[in-house]
């Protein structure tokens, strides 16, 4: 579903991501972890088509992002760390706008279902300025889920949320994966990633350190019982915590 071969991203002379290759299959949730400045956000932005990759090939649901960007983008949803909402559109109007862009014929019904699922049906006619951060996050999730994307990218989706909202967001992500979506999550909340991710990719200075299932990376770190946090500290080495 997500295929990445030799991805690299340069900012001038600085190499943010170097020769990164991995794949995420339907139903898999891959945690993208690494110290600050490891290239996680650059990687996610390249994968979502926000910034052009300097090199490599990215395929989203079989469509090559560079040569068929519209077809690839039709199949993906990107959720940034800060919910990006238009100040002057209500939640319902956000859904209408998104529906037209993704050509979602049954958007009205889907939108209602999503709002009910996210427990914000009564907030449909409110503007972002009238919503709490958690509610804004939910509105962004509703917009992202509306076209039933096959691929989803989450950049720090749980930051700033209360425990209840964290639990609900995690459940929603897991539900989408069970429904067949391929998901990549970038986060520093390792214990939460450990709960939801089937795979983990650790990046360090733009280079892949390890990629595999939780058990595989534990084995790689040489401790089958270690937590993801312990594995991360061991593998990310002196960069961790920077």
């Amino acid at each position, binding site marked *: 579903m997500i295929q990445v071969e030799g991805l690299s991203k340069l*900012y001038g002379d600085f190499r943010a991501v170097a020769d990164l290759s991995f794949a995420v299959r339907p139903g898999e949730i891959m945690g993208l972890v690494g110290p600050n400045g490891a290239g996680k956000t*650059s990687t996610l*932005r390249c994968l*979502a*088509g*926000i*910034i*052009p990759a300097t090199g490599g090939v990215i395929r989203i649901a079989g469509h090559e992002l560079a040569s068929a*960007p*519209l*077809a690839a*983008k*039709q199949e*993906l*949803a*990107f959720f*940034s760390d800060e919910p*990006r*909402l*238009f*100040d*002057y*559109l*209500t939640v319902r*109007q956000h859904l*209408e*706008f998104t*529906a*037209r*862009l*993704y*050509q*979602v*014929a*049954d*958007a*009205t019904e889907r939108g209602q279902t999503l709002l009910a699922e996210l427990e914000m049906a009564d907030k449909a*006619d*409110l*503007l972002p*300025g*009238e919503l709490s951060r958690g509610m804004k996050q939910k509105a962004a999730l509703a917009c992202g889920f509306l076209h039933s994307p096959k691929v989803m990218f989450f950049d720090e989706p749980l930051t700033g949320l209360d425990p209840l909202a964290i639990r609900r967001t995690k459940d929603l992500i897991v539900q989408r994966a069970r429904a067949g979506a391929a998901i990549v999550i970038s986060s520093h909340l390792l214990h939460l990633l450990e709960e939801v991710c089937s795979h983990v990719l650790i990046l360090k200075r733009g280079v892949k350190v390890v990629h595999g299932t939780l058990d595989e990376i534990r084995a790689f770190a040489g401790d089958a019982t270690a937590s993801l946090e312990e594995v991360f500290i061991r593998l990310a080495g002196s960069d961790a915590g920077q």
Partner: protein
Amino acid sequence: MNPALFFLYTRSLTGALKQRVARLKRPKYLFGALIGGFYFYAYFYRFLFLGAKGTPDLPADAGMLGENLAALALCVAVLIFAWIIPGKRTALTFSEAEIATLFPAPLSRRELVRYKLFTSQVGILLFAVMMTLITGRGATGRGWLHLGGWWVVISIFALHRLGASFAITRLMERGMANWQRRSVLLGVVALLAGALMAWKNFAPAPPALGALGSEDLLTAYVDDVLLSGPGPWLLAPFRLIVRPYFAADGIAFLHALWPALLILAAHYWWVLRADVSFEEASIAVTQQRAALIAARQKGDRRMTLAPRMSKIPAFSLRPVGWKAAAFVWKALLYSGGRRTLRLWGAIVAAALAISALLTLLRPSETLALTLSIAGGTIFLVTLLANLTTGGTYLRQDLVAMDLLQTLPIRGWQVVLGQLLTQAALGALIQWAGLLLAATGLLGLGGIMDARADEVFAAAAAVALLALPFNLTMMIIPAGTLLLWPGWFKGGPQSAGFEAVGLRLILMLGQLLAVGAALLLPALGGGAVWLAAQWLGWSIGWMPLAGAVAALVLAGEAWLGILALGALFERFDVSEE
């Protein structure tokens, strides 16, 4: 100043400068900086600080008059802006980071005030430079003296406002309401005015009305008024403050400077001595500023601190259809939705009604002339506004560029949706203006002999051109927005030589582009005119020429939108 605060300030300043210099590594900003720097050198610095050949200096008596008038202006400004208008508690402006780190730190209130006074010097100096540039064009070669003079005036004024705000806060803490303070102050002002009225009998007689045109007589009278009676006493301290600015040479400047510096030192002592609580008000002001800056960075220049209201869309957006329509729908919603469309409709209806009434009733030629001038002005202002507002709807989406770039839509569709909305709304107003202008022209039978069919044929031709012309004029500002988003976001990145240079390039580029864009349409319209002459067509050629020119212009606008779409798709959020 506290060493830690000095460290914070100097490092912040050098960091900001380094960032600005680092940005010059990118050719577009370097080019802007070169143009901006050259502009400042050629237009201001060379004249002000080096002296320009052939430009006479101001006469000495003009300096005296200026000093008196400046002292009077400063006195009025201090009274109004420091004592009468302020109605809130003292609020020194800190950044959010400063509040988070300095307020809980073991720093005395006096240290914080001293820090703010120190840091405000950069702003004061920049303002002084700006004022020197604005006011110094006539007095060549004395730029540095003027700069010093402005620095003295602005520094004392800023300190006085701060001291006054501390004093007002203390009065409020003691239970004195704003209205009571204002009443007392206005009472004092009234008393002074009364004293001046009483003195009037001894004052020199004003020059006769006919002599008002004589500059010498007027100058002498103003000097007499300000230098006799209570005037000199009232204005004495203010005259001391402004005197360095009017110094003729370096020696005179130094002579004038020390009394002004004594006043400055007294103000500094006054401000530091006050121990007034400003923290709470500062936090409130900082939060408001942060919200406004955030809104500005999002491109929302209409942001107020009042809560936003949801709006009804201008039309219902079906989930399936042409994708660019979603951006038309969104842009209309941004501009006010259905309410704005109704208002625009009402304006067009009013223009129609006025035109119909004028045609039926045939009132005076004065009214007709007024109407044609008003209509023409509306048309031109709306047309020229495109040069500055061309990227308005795109700008408010800058903050969500990362989201927009994940959407399955071509860049040109995003650009077209937004620009078309703005161009169409502008065209509606332009049509209303044209209608009024045309109807007005018809009522000018005694002044110009215009036939109704000719006037309306010409108006129709221009009306056809309005929409594509609006679109064409928006291409450059919208392109600039996508190329240099940094200086549309507000904040420090939108200032500096490079930003000035880029704005100059933009202005020049816009003029050239509009001129070039009009060449082909003019040729198209001209061809129709030639054909009309050849074939002996009636006035029908005018709307036809307009239509041909409009088509050509629309084609050019289309190419521009495609180019903007490519820029939109290549927009790299990580670079800005």
